[in-house]
């Protein structure tokens, strides 16, 4: 479903990704682990189309569609979702308005009719209840005054409502205590489906106790240097990343 071939990316004059190859089949959850500075977040941003990254070579195909030729909004409509490591605050735009604008913008791009108000409200209420997000939070400005955990839950709420084909979770565990982590992980697990692929980016193995991956990759110096099953995460937890930093050097 997702095919990344020989992806090379520069930021200003620094080469961050050095010929990264990755394929993720429908329904699979892949974890990408690696030391700081290995290019994990760059991969997430490039997939979502964040400006400021220069793709010098390579292809990214989602269901055969060339993602690199699309703007961030078009990629989203095509099924890409990035859960941000640091979700932003948008004062003055109520979460409800934001969700509705996003859902209808995607539907419009796909040539679908807008959701009716009762249908939209029902979907939001159901999804919010599962993530323990109350109505007051939905009325407030997007992420304004939210705790770290609330912001991450809000990301998963958006993911639930936007129903992506490919979800990329960028360090979703960062800054979460164990209770918040469980709520977020449960939310993600409920969204696993045979039609949906996920890339879970994390520095620590802890998140993978709750979101159990099908495949684990080690990213170092901008390339995938090792691939294995879920037990690879445990090995990394025990031995650290030192071996991979040396290997790439």
């Amino acid at each position: 479903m997702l095919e990344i071939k020989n992806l090379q990316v520069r930021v200003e004059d620094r080469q961050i990704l050095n010929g990264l190859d990755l394929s993720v089949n429908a329904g699979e959850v892949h974890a990408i682990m690696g030391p700081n500075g290995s290019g994990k977040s760059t991969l997430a941003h490039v997939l979502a189309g964040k400006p400021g990254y220069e793709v010098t070579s390579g292809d990214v195909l989602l269901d055969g569609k060339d993602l690199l030729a699309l703007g961030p909004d078009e990629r989203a409509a095509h099924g890409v979702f990035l859960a941000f490591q640091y979700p932003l605050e948008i004062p003055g735009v109520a979460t409800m308005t934001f969700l509705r604008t996003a859902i209808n913008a995607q539907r419009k791009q796909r040539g679908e009719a807008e959701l009716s108000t009762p249908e939209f409200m029902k979907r939001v209420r159901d999804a919010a209840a599962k993530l323990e997000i109350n109505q007051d939070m939905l009325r407030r400005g997007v992420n304004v005054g939210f705790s770290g955990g609330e912001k991450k839950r809000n990301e998963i709420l958006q993911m639930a409502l936007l129903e992506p084909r490919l979800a990329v979770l960028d360090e979703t565990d960062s800054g979460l205590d164990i209770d918040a982590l469980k709520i977020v992980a449960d939310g993600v697990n409920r969204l696993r489906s045979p039609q949906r692929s996920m890339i879970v980016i994390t520095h620590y193995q802890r998140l993978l106790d709750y979101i159990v991956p099908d495949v684990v990759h080690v990213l170092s110096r901008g390339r995938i240097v090792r691939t294995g099953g879920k037990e690879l995460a445990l090995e990394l937890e025990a031995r650290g990343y030192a071996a991979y930093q040396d290997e790439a050097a």
Partner: protein
Amino acid sequence: MKRREVMNAEVTPIKTAAETALADAFLRRQAALPGGREIAGLREAAFRRFERSGLPHRRVEEWKYTDLRALMREGKPLAQAPDASAKAAAKSAGAILAGLKAHRIIIVDGCFAPELSATAISGVTVTPFATAVANGEDEFLNSENSDTVLALNTALATDGAVIRVKSGTVVDRPIQLVFVHSAGKATAVFARSHVVVEPGATVTLVESHEGPDKLDYQINTALDLEVGRGAKVDHIKVTCEGDAALHLATLNARVSEAAELRDFTFTLGGAVVRNQLFVTCKGKRAQLSLAGASLLRGRQHADTTLMLDHAVGGSSSRELFKSVLDDESHGVFQGKIVVRPDAQKTDARMMSRALLLSPNAEADNKPELEIFADDVQCGHGATAGALDESLKFYLMARGIPEREAEALLIQSFVGEAIETISHEGVRADLMFAAVRWLRARSA
């Protein structure tokens, strides 16, 4: 003219075409302006004040960013009383506040139009300015404010509305002063209004100003607003003049003890707009909210200049002014808060923000605090910047197209100011006007 040269030892600059035209207009119209001998004397004195200083220019600190001498190239002939067709056309004015149920008072080309106006309002008296000054009411023309543009208004004011809200009255609906410039002639209009809100009364007063595009008419409008003890006043001024118009507006407001004034200045239209607000807080425990939003495009120039005088202590004020500047537009905010020596326990916070949507737009932001009391809380902030790219990416990553994402962010930016308006209908109409402006930009 000779007399001035003899009396004034300063070097007198050569008069501009506009200054000459204004002097000619005053000479020709002087005798026909409403008011008896005393008012004629006030007008004469005001005109001499104008003549001494001439049109304000960039070397006058208060006009540094709005060089009126350069911007006002010529003086237009004074407007004549509107004919039947002009009045008929004025009936449909005020569309920007279409959703508002208000007592509408219509002023066409600076003339109060009684046949178009709702003057029977319970607890309120409404009199045309011309009638009031003909009856000798002059106290509001005798202002201590020495501003040149106001002096011109005092000299040449033809008509407007004089409104008195009686003590304790809660006016059921907003009173809307609808100022219209009629199509056809590029003339100069001088309108003057006076509103007295007696102690304990409550009123929402809306002013809207509009006129045709592609006509370089000139408006000089002034409002004197007296907020009595414990009174609550919301004043919202909406400027949607035509795209070639010059609009100069002066507010003189005095706020008494325990009173509340919520003022909002909304600017969409006009080639050159200057809104000057002179607000004096003369009583304790008064609460002021002074806010505004400007949405400018093309080569529009809009200047909001606030002079807030906390003359006595124990009062609080909040100022929030936002401008959105596209194309080659120019937004100016000057805000000065003076806290007098006796005004202890004053609490004043001023914020002005400009959002630049184009590399060719310009924002000038000048906050000033002059504090002579030692036990006060005062602060100010000013920012100017472009849209936040990371916020835009966050919205786009959720599927919202670029222009729509920008519109949402701009809406949230001006929305913060518009939210300070307490009347729900006015708030909704202005928010809708802002959204329409954004849609026109996206189109």
